């Protein structure tokens, strides 16, 4: 009779104790998961190529992040339709949009078609069809930024 009553009593203390222990350790495992790797610092300026396929009447853009103030240049450097004219723009990346700052209608060439000073921040380089393409166009844009 006595033993039968004392067993639930023991559980009464053991279960909360185990729960407290579990909570304590669970909190720490979350912290360990939160420690993300630190991105490696990069040099500045950098040059990268933006390659893609532009659909008829379409547009594509790439996000770039300037880590400091400096000069941004964009050059439509190659296309599979060398005489085709496409729109090239740079702008401010905001949310899921590329807000155009400056643009030009250009053919592939050897000199940057766009060049402007930038502050550190998120920007975008956009290529679009101004209504002159008869078929999709493969392109390369060379971008240099701080």
């Amino acid at each position, binding site marked *: 009779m006595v033993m039968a009553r004392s067993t639930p*009593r*023991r559980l009464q*203390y053991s279960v909360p104790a185990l729960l407290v222990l579990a909570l304590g350790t669970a909190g720490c495992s979350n*912290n360990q998961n939160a420690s993300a790797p630190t991105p490696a610092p990069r040099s500045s300026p950098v040059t990268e190529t933006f390659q893609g396929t532009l659909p008829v009447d379409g547009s594509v853009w790439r996000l770039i992040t300037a880590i400091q103030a400096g000069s941004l240049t964009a050059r439509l450097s190659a296309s599979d339709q060398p005489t085709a004219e496409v729109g090239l723009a740079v702008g*401010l990346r905001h949310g899921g949009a590329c807000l*155009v700052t400056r643009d030009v209608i250009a053919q592939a060439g050897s000199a940057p078609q766009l060049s402007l000073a930038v502050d550190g*921040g998120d*920007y975008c380089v956009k290529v679009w069809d101004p209504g002159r393409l008869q078929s999709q166009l493969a392109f390369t844009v060379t971008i240099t930024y701080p």
Partner: protein
Amino acid sequence: MTAVTTRVLRQPRSSARLPLLAVALAFATVALSACGDSDTPQSPTQTTQKIVEVFAGRLSPGGSGFYSFQVRTSDTASYTLASLTQVASGRAVEATLTLGVGVPAGEDCNVSSSTQAAPALAPQLSTNVSPGIHCVSLADPGALTEAANFAVRIQHP
């Protein structure tokens, strides 16, 4: 008699469980405070990270608009008319607008500093700001011939 016996037997058993509970609580306290330490800096950290906000909308010829934002600490704020585009085509508009900063006054922005700005990606205007509510305004002095979409980047402490 049975009740007395039961009471006597239970007392030691209850006391024997208390150290276990106390140890568990102590462990959890240490564990949780250790976790808390990793979230709480040991000393205040100086940072130059700015808050970036974007004031975007549509401006009619001769029109104006303003946007209010909250500054937490004293430092420099910078303002960039970053985008001005045609509504229909999305092409860039190379017009010069009046970009101003100040403090809200009623339903307006009481501008204390302003400049004429064409779209760019480097700040056209910078001011020292103190904690409180500030505003940035954009007005067309007569350069627009049709409505245009705009975006002003605000970098503030």
